[in-house]
């Protein structure tokens, strides 16, 4: 019934991945182009990238791809807990909702929560780390001790405590909470890089040519820190996905009836032995997505390694 949209989504995925692959063909000496070429030639990472592209497209097109509404409960008696069939590829849950449709909408929620949260933590972490590393001295020491303090608070417990008190939590707040508790790693990476970059001849040379601190940070330091930031963003997405799934599974993250992969697992948790499909499919979705982001992250780490630029 949605065959056409599915075909469109498949075509779109192919086009995007093809475009990425072709973008790696050019022989420009740009370090980004070189990294792209290297990423494309790494089959595992490129496959992971394509899986992610497909997931993003499916998530974006969920309303047009899903055969049913994710919250419709057509017949709570006759249609509940049906095993996978042609009509319901992933079966139905205890409320007769179509698990496949919910998984598609769940992708929307889970991926957008993860992506937005990582945007928050990458921005905060980059700004914080860049300032600490660039200013240096006592300010740097204080800022880093604050990070140590932040890292010593167990993130999940903190989140559970806040979320449990603030129920039901609106999605933007969930995103902010996830983002604001996840930037310590990025800021450490950025600070370390900035610390070493600011001592480079390049920076002295730029200063000698009249560049201001702002210009040096934006043009000379941050572009050279972008690689580790990209890598930690990619790996960070996988991490946030798991945290969000965990929180939703515990019932304090994304609240029903909204579908997220985490709370879908919760739906089937009580009867996992008999009604396996309710939890298994969202679980698999999490596994595939997290693995794809991790593999892409590893591939990016190799592709963006500056030590290989001349190779």
């Amino acid at each position, binding site marked *: 019934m949605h065959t056409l949209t599915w075909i469109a989504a498949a075509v779109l995925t192919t086009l995007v991945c093809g475009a990425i692959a072709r973008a790696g063909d050019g022989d420009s000496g740009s370090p980004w182009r070189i990294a792209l070429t290297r990423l494309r030639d790494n089959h595992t990472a490129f496959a992971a990238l394509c899986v992610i592209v497909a997931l993003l497209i499916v998530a974006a097109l969920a309303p047009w791809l899903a055969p049913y509404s994710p919250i419709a409960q057509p017949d709570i008696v006759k249609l509940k807990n049906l095993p996978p069939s042609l009509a319901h590829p992933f079966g139905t849950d205890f409320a007769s909702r179509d698990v496949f449709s919910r998984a598609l909408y769940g992708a929307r929620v889970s991926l957008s929560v993860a992506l937005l949260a990582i945007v928050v933590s990458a921005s905060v972490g980059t700004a914080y780390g860049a300032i600490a590393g660039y200013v240096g*001295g006592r300010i740097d020491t204080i800022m880093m001790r604050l990070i140590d303090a932040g890292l010593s608070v167990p993130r999940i417990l903190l989140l559970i405590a806040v979320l449990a008190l603030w129920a039901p939590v609106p999605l933007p707040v969930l995103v902010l909470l996830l983002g604001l508790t996840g930037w310590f790693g990025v800021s450490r990476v950025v600070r370390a890089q900035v610390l070493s970059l600011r001592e480079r001849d390049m920076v002295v040379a730029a200063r*000698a040519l*009249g560049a201001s601190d702002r210009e040096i940070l934006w043009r000379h330091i941050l572009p050279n820190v972008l690689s580790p930031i990209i890598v930690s963003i990619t790996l960070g997405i996988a991490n946030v996905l798991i945290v969000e799934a965990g929180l939703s599974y515990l019932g304090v993250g994304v609240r029903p009836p909204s579908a997220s992969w985490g709370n879908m697992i919760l739906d089937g948790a009580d009867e996992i032995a008999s009604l396996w499909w309710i939890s298994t499919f969202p679980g698999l979705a999490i596994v595939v997505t997290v693995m794809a982001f991790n593999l892409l992250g590893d591939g990016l780490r190799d592709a963006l390694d*500056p030590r290989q630029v001349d190779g």
Partner: protein
Amino acid sequence: MTSSPSASAPLLSIRDLSTWFHTGGRSVSRAVDGVSFDVMPHETVGLVGESGCGKSVTSLSILRLIERPGRIEPGSRIDFEGRDLLSLDDRAIRAIRGNRISMIFQEPMTSLNPVFNVGDQIAEVARVHSRASRREAWERAVDMLQQVGVPAPADRAREYPHQLSGGLRQRAMIAMALMMHPALLIADEPTTALDVTIQAQILELLAELQARVGMSILLITHDLGVIAESATRVLVMYAGQIVEEAPVRTLFDAAHHPYTEGLLSAMPRLGDRRERLTVIPGTVPSPTQWPAGCRFHDRCAYAWERCRTQVPPLYQIGAGHVSRCHLAAEPARRQASGAAAGAAPAS
């Protein structure tokens, strides 16, 4: 430095420049310690000395590029085009850097930003210092690359530092430095990282550009060969101080300071029959504890009691020729110990 009417005013005038590094604790590293010299318009001044003698710190001090824990000490004075550089605020000194005074460095690979193509980096200088549009700045960058002898400049401008050879990279750095037609170019070991043939080309290019643009060059190097080729006047630095200053011919023909003598005899020359080059014994002392008296005395073949106790002033030797050595006051001592000093390297 009051003017006789015929002498033009110096472009750059440094008086009692001291740049010390306060590294914590009691010890202060007096890397540059009371340096004074002038650079006239259109002239090339060479600044020579061993590593650690303070020549790079001197050049960085001129542009106020010294970072903590380094500090230009009160009492120092740097005048450039009639302005006291040390009293300028941040914005004003930035407007001079890369615009009126430019600097090129030893290692062009690490001085360029690996993630931007060279055209962008050269164009950036114009965008920092003038209201040039992106396109205008790019065109000027390509033009500048052409002027510094880069073949196919429009294509090269789109290349990244790692795609260029060492010589081309240094040319790109020079293009960047000269983009705004500075009055003074500080070249800190500009050829040290390059092949000998490329070295000569770069020095030639600098001389040619100097003639065309009419700028002054402060050439910092440890290589007297480079000085002989390019400079008109030479400053010899040792242990944070200027120890000798002379026109280039005078320096090579009649060096006065024993340290300069040492540097000259450590340099191979055509027709030289010696089998081994002479070395100056010992190393530059630590800037946290310069020796008392003459800072060179414990490496000097002529040193006598006076050198160990009394700090030598800059003695006038001849026209434009000064030397920080007590031999100027007691020239007879050079002959007396000359035999002993001369005997050593022959063995």
